[in-house]
């Protein structure tokens, strides 16, 4: 189909419908309201589909849990403070090995913070976020096109590995308009997961639960989850490199920060600085091997984030003491310009004595 001009939020909604999303449950919060509104307009009256503006984010994620129990593709979306409220449900989804797609169009924090884009929910997204020992797949798109593509991918990965998938965007990505092309048509028949609870018809009754009075049983569940996480690490880690081949300095950035960094890198390249980019697309699993591979020939790294250094820790963990890592961060919802970042890159480049 031809490209259309859409906000990131609307593009997620359209991509979700085309991925066979049956249920959307959400609660208003800026800067992701266009997604909820898109689903109210375009999903709520579709055959077999359901849209609810829930009484809270807690209720919305638990409705998603209910819909996932019976095998529907279901999603919710929110922004940072609302995502904190959803952590209870995300933990239950992870524990019960249920698919779901959760979108975080993150904003400045902590607390009520601001409604402006920020990346300060990286820890919350990539370390589980709720109680208990679990992970979710976390995707970090950096354009409206990628939001659409990764929304489809999120439903596929979620079903394949029976794991909640977080799309970690931000207020800029959600609200900016870009041309986008949708690569899939909505399915004729909405998918229903085959292993779901649909009533004990022609089979014995089943239950889905985690609670047990036997710690050994729960330990086994945790082990089984982590075996699957190892498989996901092996199979699904994704990243992009940009002008990294001959680079002396690698900027590591994700999401909208990577988009800003690309502009900055183009501009410093024009002045002859050999700078490249590593952009993780999966924030969990983190592309640690890609970082390690680069470190075989490149010593200098600049981690750039719109927070005080959260993904920085993943780069440090990947490099295991190798390399020279600098950090530049703007927290609280301040959005740096490419020219600001290019000045920062140049400063580090010359300070390190690179030619």
């Amino acid at each position, binding site marked *: 189909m031809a490209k259309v001009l859409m906000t990131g939020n609307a593009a997620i909604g359209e991509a979700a419908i085309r991925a066979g999303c*049956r*249920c959307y*449950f959400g609660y208003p919060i800026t800067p992701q309201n266009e997604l909820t509104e898109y689903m109210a307009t375009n999903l709520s009256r579709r055959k077999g589909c*359901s849209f*609810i503006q*829930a*009484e*809270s984010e*807690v*209720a*919305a994620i*638990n*409705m*998603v*849990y*209910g*819909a*996932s*129990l*019976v*095998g*529907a593709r*279901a999603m919710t979306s929110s922004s940072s403070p609302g995502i904190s409220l959803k952590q*209870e*449900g995300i933990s*239950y989804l992870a524990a*019960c090995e249920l698919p779901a797609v959760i979108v975080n169009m993150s904003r400045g924090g902590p607390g009520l913070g601001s409604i402006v884009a920020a990346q300060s929910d990286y820890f919350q997204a990539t370390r589980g976020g709720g109680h208990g020992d679990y992970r979710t797949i976390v995707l970090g798109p950096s354009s409206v096109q990628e939001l659409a593509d990764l929304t489809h991918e999120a439903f596929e990965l979620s079903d394949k590995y029976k794991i909640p998938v977080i799309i970690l965007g931000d207020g800029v990505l959600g609200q900016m308009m870009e041309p986008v092309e949708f690569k899939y048509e909505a399915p004729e028949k909405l998918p229903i997961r085959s292993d779901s*609870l*649909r*009533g*004990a*018809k*022609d089979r014995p*009754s*089943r*239950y*889905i*639960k*985690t*609670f047990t009075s036997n710690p050994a049983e729960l330990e086994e569940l945790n082990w089984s989850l982590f075996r699957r996480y190892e498989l996901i690490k092996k199979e699904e880690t994704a990243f992009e490199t940009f002008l990294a081949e001959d680079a002396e300095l690698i900027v590591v950035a994700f999401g909208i920060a990577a988009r800003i960094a690309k502009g900055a890198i183009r501009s410093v390249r024009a002045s002859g600085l050999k700078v490249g980019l590593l952009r993780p697309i999966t924030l969990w699993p983190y592309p640690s091997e890609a970082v390690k591979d680069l470190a075989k020939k490149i010593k200098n790294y600049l981690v750039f984030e719109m927070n005080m250094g959260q993904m920085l820790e993943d780069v440090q963990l990947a490099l295991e003491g190798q390399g020279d890592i600098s950090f530049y961060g703007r927290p609280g919802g301040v959005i740096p310009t490419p020219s600001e970042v290019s000045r920062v890159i140049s400063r580090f480049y010359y300070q390190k004595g690179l030619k």
Partner: protein
Amino acid sequence: MNKIYSRPKSLKKAVFHYCPGCGHSIIHRLICEVIDELNIQDKTIGVPPPGCAVFAYYYFDVDMAESAHGRGAAVATGIKRAFPESIVFTYQGDGDLAAIGTAETIHAANRKENITSIFINNAVYGMTGGQMAPTTLSGQKTTTTPYGRSDNLEGYPLKMSDLVALVKGSVYVERCAVNSPANIRKAKKAIHKAFQNQIDGLGFSLVEILSPCPTNWKMTPLEAWHWIDNVMSKEFPLGVLKDATGAKDAD
């Protein structure tokens, strides 16, 4: 010889873990009898609570799924919206439905969700050891109201069923008890009606059941039965609080 009483088909052959004199096992059985009578075992999905009834899936022979505390009505909403052909019920205690799950319950009722909630009121948090519930009576001693529940410090017993009855989207609300053969029969009739309403697509039904907890009340089972009659049902009067089903005996 005629067999006039046997285990319901949808009740598993398992030994209940409940304390002697507890109401849960009676209520489990009543729900299973109703599921059998309505012939809905193969499309029923139950949402049991955290709390004493957390192991309900070991007893009910229907599909069931764990819910977080208070979220039963939201989980049931998701199930029913995604799979409208199912018959969905939540089984929730007073701390669950009337404290942490107040919002989910009220709003599910208000959206006219076509689900059935069975609300067990035993005036305490049972599994955690007998702390104050929203339904704890004024003056009642619990482990967190060791001097008795004070109206000024801990508030009044919350009449959640009355609140649900006020919500326009609820279709049927009745308060029952399981402390005598007569009351048990009435409770079964109410549960039957609450499930039938869902089959008929009428909307949100809630059956509150005053249920004895001799362990945390520190009474014998018989004293607990009498306490429901003499004390608890004075604060929580039994009967139909709302019937908007349009049935002959509806209000």
